[in-house]
C-alpha cells in the first residue's frame, strides 16, 4: 500500500478547467460575506468615526440576509471546488533544491490556511445561525478574526492562480460524448443547481415570500404577534422585573431626569412605524411598532440634538445589556420607544413593557425591556 499520487485520480472532474469555473463564484460569495460581515461589526461598534446611517431602514436586514444566504450557497461551491483540486493534496515537489522546496512549502501552507479558515467560517456561521455553539471560544471574536485570515489567504490564492484561471476561462469546455459518470458541464450544472437549492431551502428566514419553500430555514417567521423572538424574557432573566408594577423608564440628561411609567408613556404622542428586526444570525422580519419617539423623550430632559444615548436594559447580564444609541439614530424620527406591536401591547418576549426600535440597526442593539436612557451633560 502506497500513498496516492495525483496521477491516480483519473476522473476528468478533477483539474483546473472546473476549478477555474467554480472558484470565481466561490470567491464572490466569500467577498460578499466578508464585506457584509465587516459592515455588521462596524454597526455594532459603540463609537463610530463615520456614523452608521439610520437609512435605508432595510439596509441592515438586506446585508445580513445576504451574508447568511451567500455563506449557505458557498457550501456546495466550496465542496465542489475542493473536489476539483483534491488530487493536488498528494502533489510531491518536482525538484529537490532548497528554493523550490521552500516556495512549494509556502504555497501549500497558504492553501492549508485557506481551506481550514474557509471550512471554519462556513461551519461556525451555519451553527451560529441555528444558535448552536458546540465550542468554548467566543463566536463573535473568532468568526471576525478568522474572516480576515480567510479573506487574506483568498486574496493571496487569487494572486497565485490568476494566470491559470485566465487561461482556463479562454478555453471552452470540450464536448464529452459518453462519460463514465458525469461530464464536466454536468458537474458544473449540478453545482449551480445545488447552490440554488441551498439558497431556496434557507433564504425564507429573511425573505418573507420564500417562507413556504425554505424547509430548512432556522425560523418559519412565526412568533408572538407575528414576529420571531431571538432571546426570551425567561432566558434574559427579566420576567419578574419586566412585569413588576413599579416599572418606569428613566430618561436622564446630566442631572435632569424624568421617570415615566407605561401609562405616562402611553399618554404621550404615539407614533407608528413599520421597521424590521434583523438579527446578526441572518433572520429578519418586519413589524408595525407603536410608541413614543426617542427624540420626544430626549427633549423632555433638554438633551440637545447630536447626543449619543446610553441605553440600559433590565437584563442583569449579557454583552448587550448596555448599548449606545448613536446621535444619528436617536435624532431619527422613526426611532421609537415601542410600547405596542401590530396594534397590541408588546409581548413580554418582544420587550414588554417598552423596547427600543430604530431603522437599519442590528437586532442585538434593538434593546428590549428598557430601564434607562441616559445622555451625559
Amino acid at each position, binding site marked *: 500500500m502506497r500513498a496516492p499520487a495525483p496521477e491516480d485520480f483519473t476522473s476528468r472532474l478533477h483539474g483546473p478547467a472546473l476549478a477555474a469555473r467554480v472558484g470565481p463564484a466561490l470567491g464572490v460569495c466569500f467577498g460578499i460575506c466578508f464585506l457584509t460581515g465587516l459592515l455588521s461589526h462596524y454597526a455594532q461598534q459603540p463609537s463610530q468615526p463615520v456614523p452608521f446611517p439610520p437609512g435605508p431602514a432595510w439596509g441592515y436586514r438586506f446585508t445580513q440576509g445576504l451574508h447568511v444566504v451567500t455563506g449557505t450557497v458557498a457550501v456546495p461551491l466550496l465542496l465542489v471546488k475542493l473536489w476539483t483540486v483534491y488530487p493536488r493534496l498528494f502533489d510531491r515537489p518536482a525538484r529537490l533544491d532548497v528554493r523550490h522546496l521552500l516556495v512549494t512549502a509556502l504555497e501549500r501552507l497558504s492553501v492549508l490556511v485557506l*481551506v481550514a479558515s474557509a471550512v471554519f467560517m462556513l461551519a461556525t456561521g*451555519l451553527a451560529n445561525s441555528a*444558535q448552536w455553539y458546540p465550542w*468554548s471560544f467566543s463566536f463573535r471574536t473568532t468568526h471576525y478574526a478568522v474572516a480576515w485570515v480567510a479573506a*487574506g489567504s483568498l486574496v*493571496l490564492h487569487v494572486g497565485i492562480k490568476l494566470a491559470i484561471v485566465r487561461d482556463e476561462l479562454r478555453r471552452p469546455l470540450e464536448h*464529452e*460524448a459518453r462519460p463514465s*459518470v458525469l461530464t464536466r458541464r454536468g458537474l458544473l450544472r449540478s453545482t449551480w443547481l445545488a447552490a440554488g437549492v441551498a439558497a431556496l431551502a434557507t433564504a425564507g428566514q429573511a425573505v418573507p415570500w420564500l417562507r413556504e419553500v425554505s424547509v*430548512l430555514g432556522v425560523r418559519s417567521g412565526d412568533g408572538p404577534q407575528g414576529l420571531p423572538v431571538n432571546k426570551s424574557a425567561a432566558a434574559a432573566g427579566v420576567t419578574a422585573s419586566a412585569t413588576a408594577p413599579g416599572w418606569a423608564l428613566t430618561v436622564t440628561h446630566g442631572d435632569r431626569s424624568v421617570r415615566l411609567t407605561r401609562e405616562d408613556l402611553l399618554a404621550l404622542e404615539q407614533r407608528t412605524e413599520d421597521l424590521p428586526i434583523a438579527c446578526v444570525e441572518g433572520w429578519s422580519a418586519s413589524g408595525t411598532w407603536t410608541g413614543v419617539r426617542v427624540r420626544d423623550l430626549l427633549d423632555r430632559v433638554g438633551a440637545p440634538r447630536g447626543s449619543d444615548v446610553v441605553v440600559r436594559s433590565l437584563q442583569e447580564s449579557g454583552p448587550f445589556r448596555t448599548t449606545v444609541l448613536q446621535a444619528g439614530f436617536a435624532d431619527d424620527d422613526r426611532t421609537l420607544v415601542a410600547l405596542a406591536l401590530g396594534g397590541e401591547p408588546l409581548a413580554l418576549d418582544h420587550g414588554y413593557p417598552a423596547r427600543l426600535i430604530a431603522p437599519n440597526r442590528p437586532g442585538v442593539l434593538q434593546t428590549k425591556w428598557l430601564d434607562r436612557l441616559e445622555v451625559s451633560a
Partner: protein
Amino acid sequence: MTARVALGALGVALTAYGGWLLVTRESDLLDVATWLVAGAVLHDAVLVPTVLVLGVVATRWLPWAARGPAAAGLVVLGSVTLLAVPVLGRFGARADNPTLLDRDYTAGWLVLAGLVLAGVVTATLVRSRLGARRVERGSNTRSG
C-alpha cells in the same frame, strides 16, 4: 506580474492581521485550533474519500444511464444535507423560545430528498430511452 505581487502582499497582510486579532482577542486558542484543523481533516480524510468510494461503487453497480443523474443528485442532496446539519439536529433548540428552529426539518428534508430522487429517476429514464435509440441507429460511440 505587478498585480500578482500586490495581491500576494495584500493577502499576506490581511492574513497576518487576522492572526493578530485572533491571538490578542481570543483566549481559547486551543479550541479554535482544534476546529480549524478538524474542518480541513474531516473534509480531506473522511468526506472526499467517502465520495470517492461512492463513485467507485456507482460505476460498478449502477447502469450507465443512472450514473450521471445519481452523481448530480449526490452533489445537490449531499451538500444541502451537510449545510442543514445544525437545523436537522436541532442542537440549538431552547424550551423557552419556540420561535427558534420551529419547522419540521425531518419532513422538509424528506420532501427535498423525494424531489431529488424523482429528478434522478426521471433523468435516468430519459437517458436510457435516448441511449437505446442511439444504439438502434447504430451511432453509439463509447468513450470516457
